[in-house]
């Protein structure tokens, strides 16, 4: 009996288990700072993309304020650490709470609108947030930026030792621990009754309402969870990079995260991760060259949206379905 339950567990969670194993062992093979940096950035953007996927892919709401929340999370963490001397862990929790609180008000306002109006409205919020960060110099240092944000505070260990975050490896494990936690949480939510409400709102709001689903509450719930993780990824970014400027809350950030989700495939768990990882790697590798990165992204987007709507994961599912059909014949 226990054997079957265990093997069941393994088969259902195989992808995640493999992912965790790979993630855990990579630092033994990679030592170059450059590659470790790329991986850490992959992790951070992975969290951001996975959270956007929740509100956009699973709940079907075109929320374009995501970059703003990334920025709010980043600046909150940075400011709490720099100006109030609060340690990283507490600052991170507080930053996420602040992000959710602001998200609550923005969400309430934004969800009074639908469709295109909602998309534009959230985009406007994004711009407003960036402008505020840029101009409220007293708080955020404006365009000068926040410098010298410390790395995460060391965690005390028994026997007088501690885990400190001065090495790339330590930061790598930190970021990826959060990434895996994020994925597990989102997956749990998506596969639950709450997740079903999200799918219902995505599918047909009127029908969802007639089935007793409070669509406003559901949208807000999805939005706030999504915003929480956006703030989390921002906080991790702030402490790792150590430097912030208003640009990180810009709508360009929103669109980059959007591209990660689209190329990987909205509405799947693996999609945003695949998109975030592959594009971060590509863009960091091409950093030196005078490569019009966004032009390429632009063409990629148009081609995907016209010909390969589900992104990479969508293509994978189609392929799998076709193979399955062929096998049955």
């Amino acid at each position, binding site marked *: 009996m226990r054997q079957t339950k265990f093997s069941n567990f393994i088969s259902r969670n195989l992808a995640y288990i493999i992912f965790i194993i790979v993630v855990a062992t990579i630092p033994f093979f990679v030592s170059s700072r450059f590659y470790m940096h790329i991986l850490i950035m992959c992790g951070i953007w992975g969290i951001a993309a996975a959270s956007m996927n929740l509100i956009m892919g699973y709940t079907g709401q*075109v929320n374009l304020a995501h970059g703003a929340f990334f920025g709010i999370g980043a600046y909150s963490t940075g400011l709490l650490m720099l100006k109030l001397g609060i340690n990283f862990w507490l600052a991170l929790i507080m930053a996420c709470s602040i992000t959710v609180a602001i998200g609550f008000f923005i969400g309430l*306002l934004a969800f*009074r*609108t*639908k*469709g*295109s*109006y909602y*998309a*534009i*409205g959230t*985009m*406007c*919020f994004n*711009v*407003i947030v960036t*402008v*505020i960060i*840029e*101009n409220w110099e007293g708080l955020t240092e404006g365009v000068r930026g926040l410098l010298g944000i410390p790395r995460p505070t060391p965690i005390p260990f028994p026997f007088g030792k501690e885990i400190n975050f001065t090495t790339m490896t330590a930061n790598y494990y930190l970021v990826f621990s959060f990434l895996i936690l994020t994925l597990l949480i989102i997956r749990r939510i998506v596969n639950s009754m709450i997740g079903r409400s999200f799918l219902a709102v995505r599918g047909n709001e009127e029908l969802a309402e007639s089935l007793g689903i409070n669509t406003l509450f559901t949208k807000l719930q999805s939005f706030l969870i999504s915003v929480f993780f956006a703030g989390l990824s921002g906080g991790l970014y702030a402490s790792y990079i150590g430097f912030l400027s208003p640009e990180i809350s810009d709508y360009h950030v929103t*669109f980059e995260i*959007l*591209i990660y989700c*689209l190329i990987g495939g909205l509405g799947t768990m693996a999609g945003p991760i695949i998109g975030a990882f592959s594009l971060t790697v590509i863009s960091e590798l091409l950093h030196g060259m*005078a490569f*019009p*990165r*966004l*032009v390429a*992204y*632009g*063409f*990629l*987007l*148009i081609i995907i*949206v*016209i010909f390969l*709507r589900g992104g990479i994961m969508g293509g994978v599912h189609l392929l799998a379905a076709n193979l399955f059909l062929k096998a049955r014949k």
Partner: protein
Amino acid sequence: MLYTKNFNGKDDAEMALFIQQVLNGIMLGSIYSLVALGLTLEYGILHIPNFAHGALYMAGAYLTFLLATQMGFNYWLAMMLAMIALAAIGVLVERLVYRPLIKESPLNSFIAAIGLIFIFVDGALHIFGPDFKRFPPVHYEAFQVMGLTITLQRIIIITVTILLIILLQLFIKKTTIGATIEATAQDREGALLMGISVNRVRMIVFALGTGLASIAAALISPIHLVYPGMGGPVILKAFVIIILGGMGSIPGAIIGGFILGLVESLSGGYISTAYNEVFSFGVLVTVLAIRPTGLFGAK
């Protein structure tokens, strides 16, 4: 207040400042109206907003600049040629990008538009560089009227805009093509049944809308200069306008454009230029919260 019986120096200056701001607002409003008009026309046909409108606006500015400086064309000729070229580009964009996505959810058209924006804006960045381009000195003559300084360019902007608005109205109301545009905007299937070629209408509307944007860009460039990101603020404001005025409403776009231009100019002059974008968006958000379909909005 700004008016006193005795015209002493301080009030004179305040009055002059006020009128200056109002004129500036009308000028800005002209540009915004033209851009919003193109956007609202396209929305009437597409039923989703053309998010790439700002990128095409920027392309119009760069092309005009290129023709005027590299090719040495006269300003007006450059503007005309650029407008024609942009109209053609607009038609291509509609045909290759938006038309395949007609039956899909609006999200896909939106994403494709983002792709277009990346291509145009980043392309401009790489071809021309990030610096602000100046137009060759033209129309910088200034007039002194009642203690105010007005440059010729501003007068040109306002005049050309009014002319274009009148021409557009005549075109839509008095010509057959205009009638087909209105018919298709109101009821696509009905128009199809009447034998109207909806595809041709889409083409014409996009040529029109993009052409208007190009002219607007060419008009404002001598004052506000040309740079890759110039489409961003303008397009966001155009959205504010058509949402306030109602997506698809022509009077809404015109009135909304001038209102926004005035609000921005006056708040910029009397409060702070930094926050004026926040102000505009704040107005938008407030209106949407009260009337989620805009001031004149139908649905």
